[in-house]
């Protein structure tokens, strides 16, 4: 069989992803995450009488705990498959990546399983975050913007 024909048959049998539906779902899910974050942050600010920055940190902690717990209970993976970037781009995606990598490697033991592999996916975020922060920070510090 020619390579072209083969490629055509493979393409016609690929499951089609509806890109517009994906985009709308991730926009809506992300948007409601934002509204929920805002509500939670306001709630903390008025209940505990703290500054808006501390309230935002508490709100992020709440999201992280919930994402870790739901991943451990097993149904957060289905939500991520449904909402895709709506849950990956918010901080929940960071917590989910740490937790799911930990669950995958748990049976290899506490040191070489959990300890070594927990930050497997989240490590790239931390590495590139630190490198870009120091690089762009020195640009801003030296440039004096």
């Amino acid at each position, binding site marked *: 069989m020619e390579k072209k024909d083969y490629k055509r048959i493979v393409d016609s049998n690929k499951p089609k992803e509806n890109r517009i539906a994906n985009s709308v779902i*991730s*926009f809506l899910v992300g948007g409601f995450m934002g509204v929920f974050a805002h509500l939670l942050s*306001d709630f903390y600010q008025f209940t505990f009488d703290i500054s808006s920055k501390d309230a*935002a940190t508490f709100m992020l902690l709440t999201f992280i705990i919930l994402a870790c717990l739901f991943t451990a209970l097993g149904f957060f993976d289905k939500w991520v498959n449904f909402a895709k970037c709506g849950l990956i781009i918010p901080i929940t*995606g960071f917590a989910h*990546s*740490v937790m799911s990598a930990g669950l995958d490697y748990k049976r290899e033991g506490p040191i070489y399983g959990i300890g070594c592999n927990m930050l497997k996916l989240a490590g790239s975020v931390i590495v590139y975050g630190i490198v*870009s922060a120091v690089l762009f920070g020195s640009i801003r510090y030296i440039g004096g913007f």
Partner: protein
Amino acid sequence: MTYLYSFLFVGIVCLIGQIILDNTKLTPGHITSLFVIIGAFLDIFSIYDWFIDNVGPGAYVPITSFGHSLIHGALARASDVGFFGLFLGAFDLTAAGIVSVIFFSFIFLLIFNPKD
């Protein structure tokens, strides 16, 4: 009204991520790393600060704010102790996020087993 701004800001950031994910060969790992770099880059000219002031707490939710907090802590320390403050202060603001992710993941990993 600020709730609407939060909705639009987080929604649009997620929408951009989804469009990149669907139309290129990049994986979610690439996209989150890219967004952290973008968040740090936007802070060179204080653009992300402007978003946080005007949008409110919603602007802390996307992963871009992680890059913003890293560079912000670094610059705050640098204004106190000079250039090497960039290295001392990078984790100042993000410490809560990273510590809580590692701590709670570890605790839940001890309690729960993977479900297949």
